[in-house]
């Protein structure tokens, strides 16, 4: 047997040796879904759960307050004026126009002697999603100290309710200037208080509200067992926040479906844009987390526009305007991106009107900043563009590190990025007309 077996054993060994060498393997590129899901997985991007149910009575009160101009000193502007449902809870303007203005939306114009609000009115869509910071400079935070210029009530339930306390104090936005008269020709009593008297201002607003029986009824329903006369403006702000949570949370976008494992929820072009977003285009370095932003600040090299804020005026130093925040000079809150398609114009001062222009800006920020053409802006704000070399150099000094080198995206890739950004739109956010009341308790015009 030995002689017969030996050749077979040799053959077996040869076969073993031959097979032990793994055959050449050609690369097997990942599918788009594999690439995209792997990219997403590194950035804690998760879908948004349904918002908690809100007390209908609280929402009804908040809805009335949101659309009622009685909250403004001159009774000529409501929250919804700058957060117009027809424009997806923003006003479509680069810089907001506060009290004294006329018209609505993009047709709104400054009143005589008035100036623009220094920053863009951000959309209220998903404002109640759980942002860490609100306002463009993030001066109001879920975690940090209260804003330096005002003491807020301690019993506010969330940062959105705290935010709703603020615009009624701002003279440009809602309160008005000393000597103003309201739409009926009566003196604006809210404007008479100094800026350091927020409690008196809020109390005066409550006096206005509780003088209207329908508001008394609405407050009683929202806060049963609490005498309306004992209520402060905090409960009113809480009601506005509840309305925002109930009516303006729009998180059912195709991308959210994709995050819920529906591979066909977004198109091939959108997937390619998503891969760029999460990788080479570096968008995700700021727009990350469950909300795709909202948690940090960035100097994105945005051209300076508007009357400016505080000590930096006529420039707007953004987060750097706040005490001990020089490192954030020209940095602004990174906005969350769901529904971004609907909330033009973009950035803190609305200098870019389209998503395409935003992506082009990010493709080469230094060049975009240096070559910014103010003619692309609405005529009313063109003169407030600060395009001098010193300002540009100043902005570039603290430019976000990841934006200092061009992305070198092709035109097709920029189109894919835009397509991906549009996949973040909840279809139900396109038409918000259903949230507008026919009338408000004060009887003032809703629009």
């Amino acid at each position, binding site marked *: 047997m030995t002689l017969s077996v030996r050749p*077979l054993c040799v053959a077996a060994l040869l076969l073993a040796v031959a097979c032990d060498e793994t*055959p050449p393997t050609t690369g097997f590129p990942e599918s788009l879904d594999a*690439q995209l899901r792997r990219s997403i997985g590194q950035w804690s991007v998760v879908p948004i759960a349904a918002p908690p149910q809100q007390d209908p009575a609280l929402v009804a009160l908040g809805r009335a307050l949101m659309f009622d101009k009685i909250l403004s000193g001159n009774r000529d502007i409501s929250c919804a004026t700058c957060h117009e449902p027809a424009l997806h809870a923003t006003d479509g303007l680069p810089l907001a126009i506060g009290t004294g203005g006329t018209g609505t939306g993009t047709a709104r114009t400054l009143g005589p002697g008035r100036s623009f609000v220094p920053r863009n009115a951000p959309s209220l869509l998903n404002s109640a*999603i759980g942002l860490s910071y609100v306002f463009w400079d993030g001066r109001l935070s879920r975690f940090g100290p209260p804003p330096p210029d005002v003491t807020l009530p301690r019993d506010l339930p969330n940062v959105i309710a705290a935010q709703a306390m603020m615009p009624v104090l701002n003279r440009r936005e809602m309160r008005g200037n000393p000597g103003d008269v309201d739409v009926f020709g009566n003196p604006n009593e809210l404007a008479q208080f100094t800026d350091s008297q927020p409690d008196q201002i809020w109390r005066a607003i409550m006096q206005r509200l509780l003088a209207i029986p329908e508001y008394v009824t609405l407050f009683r329903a929202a806060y049963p067992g609490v005498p309306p006369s004992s209520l402060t403006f905090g409960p009113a702000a809480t009601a506005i926040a509840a309305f925002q949570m109930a009516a303006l949370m729009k998180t059912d976008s195709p991308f959210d479906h994709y995050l819920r494992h529906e591979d066909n929820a977004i198109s091939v072009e959108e997937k390619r844009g998503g891969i760029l977003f999460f990788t080479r285009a570096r968008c995700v370095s700021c727009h990350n987390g469950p909300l795709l932003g909202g948690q940090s600040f960035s100097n994105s090299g945005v051209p300076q526009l508007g009357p400016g804020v505080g000590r930096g005026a006529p420039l707007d130093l953004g987060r750097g305007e706040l005490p001990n925040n020089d490192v954030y000079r020209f940095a602004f809150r990174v906005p969350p991106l769901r529904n971004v398609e609907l909330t033009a114009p973009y950035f803190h001062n609305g200098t870019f009107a389209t998503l395409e222009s935003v992506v082009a800006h990010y493709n080469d920020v230094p060049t975009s900043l240096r070559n910014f053409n103010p003619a692309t802006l609405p005529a009313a704000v063109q003169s407030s563009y600060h395009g001098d070399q010193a300002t540009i150099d100043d902005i570039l000094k603290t430019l976000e590190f990841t934006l200092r080198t061009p992305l070198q995206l092709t035109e097709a890739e920029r189109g894919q990025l835009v397509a991906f950004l549009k996949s973040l739109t909840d279809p139900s956010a396109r038409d918000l007309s259903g949230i507008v009341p026919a009338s408000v308790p004060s009887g003032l015009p809703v629009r």
Partner: protein
Amino acid sequence: MSPSGLRAVCLVVPLICLVSPARAQLIPIKTIPIAQGDQFQIFPSNNMGMGGVSIALPDSLGDPFANPATTARLRASRFFSAPTVYSLSGNAGGGRSLPFAMLTRRANWYGGLALVLQQVDPSRPPQQNGFIAVNAPLARPGSGPPIPGPDLRAHGNQYAFGMFGRSWPGSNLSIGGSALWTGLHALDGVDLLYSGSRRVEQTGHAVDVRIGALKEWPGERGARTLEAVVVHNRFAATHNVLYVDQFWDPGLQQIVLQPRTDHNFDHTNTWGAQLEYQMALPTPGWRIGWVATVNRATHPKLPSYDITNVAVIPWDPGRTYAYNLGVGLSKVLGPATFGVDAIYEPIRSYTWADAIAPTATLGGDTIAVGGKTVENRFKFSNAVFRIGVGRDIALEGSPKAIGLQFGLMMRSINYRLQQTNHVELTQRALRTGWLEWSPTWGLTLRFPEFELRYRGRVMKGAGRPGFGAQFVVGARDLAVSSGAILAVPSGPLSLVDVNTATHQISLSLPIH
């Protein structure tokens, strides 16, 4: 195994259509070198210690379970039991089986019954650096019960086998039929195929029906034999896979965990036929055999497996044509036995993904519901080589004898995958392969009253999904923390080598 040898394969299909303890007639298909344990080695085998050679060397214990007609060779009724245990190195899994079988014949009729109880341990990533899997439930902030942890209990399978047949001595013809029913709750390794899952519950069954024939032509140097088997195998399993998804809760303003259960169905139906011919060679003791097998498998639904480090690919229906052609030599001369088999297995498999909704392609077209979005074409060129020797040693002055066996089995798997994606308008190709090999051994104690056999083997060359040595958390926990399925990584498939050691002790007792 070198991870670099296996790029992001995305295909998972260790097609479990080979869920049958019977050898040969069902050709295994495997697209990744996953170690699947040895749970289907449940019936006794005499040749297992000789590398499992079978083409030119009959397996007196195992053949009746592969081709019921070969039970005609049984001289007397016998009772069998073959307790079998297997374990994977690195504490990656294991199982044990306890079969009871009886083969009997009366005049020209013969039959058999077998019952097998089996327990399969949960599959685990091979332990590295002292890692111990954690099975604590996950607490959920807010409302909701805790999410259960991985199921670390062993689960049982049951097998029931029945067979009968008749022989016609005048014509040396035998025809038999058999049926095997399997109740499945644990397929080894399946729980590792769903990366990021929290736990996997398996239910299912398999039915294997076969009809066999044996024809012998006596000759001076030994009989020529022709065996034929037709087999139909139906396999259906459901995998209820619990994932933990992460959501942002606007109310709580934090990320919360929610359980999600995916129901994956794994259905495969196989028709197969095999012809095996043996004849004696002019040299005394030598025999030669040939075997030819054809399988046609349809896969009404393949599961959407998701292996750690492997990109997700949609899997829907498919079909497979598998063939093998083999030649074997054996020599039985006195107490010595030698056998060798060489088999070539060409396989063609075609799977695709159906559009479950109108799907826009990159070219602007729309694939209607039911249209193919992805097509995968596999071309396998597998080879099997088995060699073994055995020697009986009579104990001087005693009716007892000892038998020794040694052998080696090697399976070379090579395939090319051509994938066409009609949505992305891309084509991708992959060529890969690996080698699995098993040294085998056996020891037989022959007493006048009964025979006691020990058979063992170690299967090498396959692996199990592991986790990087840098991580101190398990694969499941890692996936949970990074977003369940969203966290599916890609890149080279990284499996940790494991060995599967199988030990079988079979008792063959004549029934007088």
